[in-house]
């Protein structure tokens, strides 16, 4: 057999095996190191700080867990959140993340390593990303081989789509959930392959961990049944499937019900019914298989087949009936919004108002996955080549996750692993083909080679030498796959249909060299891209903002912490702070003050109340504020430095959410100009100008410009010179760049007047003379 280049032949197989396993271990270790290191940009560029919004709650909860122990955490009633309703934290969170940190904390302290809980929280996500890389390696190894596994591990280690949720400080459920997701899938595939109840149980245990860690566990709950159902429909029912699925479902469901937040949902809600239905179906099919094994009559079998269908139909009817009767909760709004992207905006504005629930923009696919996104289809098609059970799984996963990633930005996260796996399969196939030194034997039907420079047109199809198995049909597909990798792919795919199977393969070193260098170049650019995106886009804590000075040096904008620390230092411990819900967790975490609403958006009415207060005139808002004991109102205003994520830009969501509850009092069209524009300048509608949010945002803003025209840098509009006045609130604090403004709610007037009158009096305005009340009764 001709070789393109020589290989050392005097190595014993044991040496090769040992060396390769050592290399694998080293590679995995390096991948872990790279995965962790690239996530530390946030710490290096800024500091060891918890990021964004939700992580602040998780951090706070973890502190409670670390300080007071697990039982206190389980029974924790947070009376500072959702004031005055309070929040039963133990029953409304997925405790997996905090429990993980708590365990790590206790273990470290038991080892006399007094690590601060904050550092554990900050570094948890990078640490788990290394585990994710490992579990992706294991998963891909089951799919193809170790080299594909290593590629997949490297991809997931640095893919921005996953980094975006797991940089240091991004202490959120997703940080550990992706590891759990991949490991659950790995053990599921393993269980399916081996038919082992042990791996089925392992799947169930990690499924339980996943349920405890992230609401996205429903993805697993539906992926595994979908896979099982597909296998049944493909006629691939086997006792391996039966054992794997049954052990997973029975143990996994019972275990998941132990999480207080989940409770009886697995048997009561529609999202979990697919798993139950497939479980039932599997029992029926297993029974049918058993009977078929014992009875040879064909007619009897057809009767059985019919009865299986009847039972299935009855099951669906029973499910519909139970749903109708209310025994099974119907699909939730969040679920509907997965199918109809306009649903949330119409019926549940609170879900639609979250930016990460918006449909994904196409560029973000490239930004998050770079060249993986076009290797991804190739890898999926390669899966058809072998189409073992696990390949079916990857294909389903790919289809489902692609759809979801298109619907919601945040679900890009679930797509990333499968993209990495599929791309790794494709890429490693490419490399296998071109690194393999075996050259095909030149047959009689010679390929029309016209000189060495036409190597690009040489057949690019893959010989079965790599995985010398049945590869007849797959050849064309593989051609497609590799064609995406090289420029001359199409030509090769068309021209490469040589009749003789023996003649397929790659000749010479030049072709190999070209392709491999090209491939390595892509990898290199991928690394550069990932590093760049990670450092520039995904490593901002969003609590601290960075901008560039004219000389290129970094300028830190620290208004948020400035304001939160002002609250912490200058207000009584029990001063209630009202803000839009985005900042609830941060206020609770950094300022340690009670908040009305926070990012755990469980009570729509309460949020709508805040929305109403913000969008109403002062005198309407004041009783609401008093009723809720609000002492301070905190708003975010970006008009001075051009911070676009401010409250005026979110204001329409407040209006919409308030309108959902009080359609008679708040109407969205009133906040637009007659032409339908959203403006804040002179042309703004009176309702807009009188709203509390507008007044608080632009209070004394024009004074800052000292007579010249004041301009809002976010909206790019000119602010009226005479700004709004406030009667019921006092400006208490405005941060350096005016990003955070805090207002104090005035107490009721000493003399029982309304505050507008009191304010007019304090400003020295004369009151209109009043007359005594007419006493009609006395005169009659």
């Amino acid at each position, binding site marked *: 057999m001709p070789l393109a280049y020589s290989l050392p032949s005097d190595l014993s197989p044991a040496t090769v095996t040992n060396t390769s396993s050592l290399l694998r271990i080293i590679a995995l270790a390096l991948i872990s190191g790279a995965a962790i290191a690239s996530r530390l940009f946030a710490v290096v560029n800024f500091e060891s700080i918890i990021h964004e919004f939700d992580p602040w709650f998780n951090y706070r909860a973890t502190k409670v867990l670390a300080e007071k122990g697990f039982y206190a955490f389980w029974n924790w009633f947070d009376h500072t959140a959702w004031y005055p309703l309070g929040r039963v934290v133990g029953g409304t969170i997925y405790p997996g993340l905090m429990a993980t940190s708590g365990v790590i904390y206790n273990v470290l302290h038991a080892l006399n390593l007094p690590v601060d809980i904050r550092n554990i929280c900050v570094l948890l996500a990078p640490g788990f990303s290394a585990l994710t890389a490992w579990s992706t390696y294991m998963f891909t190894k089951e799919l193809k081989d170790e080299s594909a596994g290593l590629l997949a591990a490297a991809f997931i280690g640095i893919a921005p789509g996953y980094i975006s949720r797991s940089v240091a400080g991004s202490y959120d459920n997703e940080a550990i959930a992706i590891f759990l997701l991949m490991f659950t899938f790995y053990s599921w595939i393993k269980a399916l392959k081996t038919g082992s109840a042990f791996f089925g149980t392992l799947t169930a245990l990690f499924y339980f961990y996943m349920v405890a860690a992230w609401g996205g566990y429903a993805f697993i709950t539906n992926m595994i049944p979908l896979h099982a159902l597909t296998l049944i429909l493909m006629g691939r029912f086997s006792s391996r499937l039966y054992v794997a699925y049954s052990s997973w479902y029975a143990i996994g469901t019972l275990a998941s019900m132990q999480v207080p937040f989940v409770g009886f949902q697995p048997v009561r809600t529609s999202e979990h019914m697919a798993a139950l239905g497939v479980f039932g179906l599997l029992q029926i099919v297993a*029974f049918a298989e058993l009977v078929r094994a*014992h009875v040879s009559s064909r007619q009897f079998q057809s009767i059985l087949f019919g009865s299986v269908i009847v039972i299935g139909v009855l099951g669906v009817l029973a499910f519909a009936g139970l749903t109708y009767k209310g025994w099974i909760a119907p699909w939730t709004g969040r679920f509907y919004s997965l199918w109809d992207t306009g649903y949330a905006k119409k019926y549940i504005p609170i879900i639609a108002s979250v930016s990460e629930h918006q449909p994904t923009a196409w560029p973000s696919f490239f930004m998050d996955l770079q060249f993986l996104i076009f290797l991804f289809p190739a890898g999926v098609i390669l899966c058809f080549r072998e189409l073992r059970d696990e390949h079916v799984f990857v294909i389903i996963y790919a289809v489902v996750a692609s759809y979801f990633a298109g619907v919601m930005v945040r679900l890009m996260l679930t797509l990333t692993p499968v993209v990495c796996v599929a791309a790794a399969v494709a890429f490693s196939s490419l490399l296998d083909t071109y690194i393999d030194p075996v050259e095909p034997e030149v047959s009689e039907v010679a390929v029309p080679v016209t000189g060495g420079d036409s190597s690009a047109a040489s057949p690019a199809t893959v010989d079965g030498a790599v995985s010398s198995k049945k590869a007849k049909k797959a050849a064309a597909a593989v051609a497609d796959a590799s064609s995406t990798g090289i420029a001359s792919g199409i030509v090769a795919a068309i021209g490469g249909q040589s009749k003789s199977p023996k003649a397929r393969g790659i000749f010479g070193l030049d072709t190999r060299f070209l392709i491999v260098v090209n491939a390595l170049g892509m990898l290199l650019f991928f690394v550069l891209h990932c590093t760049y995106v990670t450092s520039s886009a995904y490593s901002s804590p969003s609590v601290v903002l960075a901008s560039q000075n004219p000389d290129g040096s970094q300028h830190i904008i620290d208004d948020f912490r400035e304001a939160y620390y002002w609250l912490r230092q200058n207000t009584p411990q029990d001063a209630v702070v009202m803000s839009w819900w985005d900042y609830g967790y941060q206020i609770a975490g950094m300022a340690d003050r009670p908040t009305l609403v926070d990012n755990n958006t469980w009570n729509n009415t309460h949020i709508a109340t805040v929305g109403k207060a913000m969008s109403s005139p002062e005198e309407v808002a004041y009783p609401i504020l008093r009723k809720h004991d609000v002492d301070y109102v905190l708003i975010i205003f970006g008009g001075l430095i051009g911070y676009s994520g401010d409250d005026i830009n979110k204001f329409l969501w407040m209006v919409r959410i308030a309108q959902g509850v009080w359609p008679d009092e708040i109407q969205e069209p009133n906040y637009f100009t007659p032409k339908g524009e959203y403006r804040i300048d002179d042309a703004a509608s009176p309702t807009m100008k009188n709203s509390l949010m507008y007044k608080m945002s632009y209070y004394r803003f024009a004074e800052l410009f000292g007579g010249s025209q004041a301009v809002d840098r976010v909206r790019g509009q000119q602010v009226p010179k005479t700004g709004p006045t406030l009667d019921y609130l006092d400006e208490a604090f405005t941060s350096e760049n005016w990003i955070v403004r805090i207002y104090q709610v005035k107490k009721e007037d000493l*003399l029982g007047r309304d505050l507008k009158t009191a304010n007019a009096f304090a400003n020295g305005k004369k009151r209109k003379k009043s007359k005594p009340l007419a006493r009609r009764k006395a005169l009659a």
Partner: protein
Amino acid sequence: MRFLRTLLFPLVALTSLALARSSTGDTVLVLLEPSLKKENFSIFFGDLEKKGYKLTFRSPKDTTPEIIKDDVAQFAHVVVFAPETKTFAGDITPQTLVSLLSKKTNLLLALSPKQTPLSSLAAEFTLILPPPGTPLISHFPKRDTPATVVPVEPPRAHHIISDGLAPVWFSGVPQALGNSPMLVPLLQAPPQAFASDADSDSGADALVEAAEKSGEGLWAGSSLSLVTGFQALSNARATWVGGIEIFSDEYINKEISKGVKSGNRQFVKDVAAWTFQEANVLRIDTVEHHRVNETLPRETYTINNQVTYTAYISQYDPELDLWEPYSGINDLQLEFTMLDPHIRTSLPPVAGEPGKYSVSFRVPDRHGVFKFNVDYKRKGWSYLSSTTVVPIVPPRHDEYPRFLSAAWPYYAGAFSTSAAFLLFVALWLAGDEREPKKGKGSKAE
């Protein structure tokens, strides 16, 4: 010990005699118009000094002594006897007078028929004054004084004014009362009195006409107030007196009828006592809450707990300069509030324990941040308000009932399934060798 106490008691009594009777302090600033002579009010001021007040006099146009220095009120009480002053010194504006109230300084203000800054300030207290130059006039009863000097019957059985006083001489402007619940009328005009031009009675016809139109309002009759107290939310008190003469020695000594002295002296004493927070001053000393059968408060309570709430209320005793337990409130209420009162119950005094008000109730079946609210506002009495925040939490994981009788079917199901499984395993292991095929069938089922 007893010896010591007997020794101490007169000592305490003596010192308390020397101290002022007010619950808030003994310094009084009197802003006296230069046209008014201090000697003309010697009885009123003398009575105050006898009680122990330290009077400081200052002309409205002087700049010292300051009323507010470094944002701290320098006097516990301010008497503004400047009914005709049009321009005050810079530190006395309507705004500073109101801010004095927020600093818990009490005010005693005298008005006159003339338009002054004070009369526009009165509007902030929802007092409505007649047009300038229209004092109170009454032609009844027949007497030899001018029509503007009116004998007024003081209120009977009033909780601020002493009972059984002789009529009080009054001359000045009446005030119609607005709808503020903080107003406390202390002296009301006689039914026959009205406000009109003092010079002639020609205004009377105009008044009747106005009354007939009814929309104009009417400055006549007993709905008019002559001396009006006002208690601000800070519990500081401001009293508006329609005319300054009511305090004068002349009116105090003037006879109502042959041999009967007017009630002015006692009346203005009562008014000053109320205004300077000697009388009708209550406070909540402490509040306590705990679970029934316990004594210490808990940080949180669980839903459906039985909870006892106790408030200790005392009244200021001006005679002894002491706060004494007070059990005289029978309509005190307690609210247990989260957004809205979930429970509103009366908070009755405990018999045999003076000053103690207590009630036990069951916490609602609703978790959240609740407040024990006591909010007692009665005219003429200090406002009592107390808010205690306490979170109500759901039961801990181990506080739920452990075994439910209703769940016996499930217990039975669980145990019978376990037993059946064990039996099955035993049979399976035992029967394996004999009939392996049958065993396999039973597994699938």
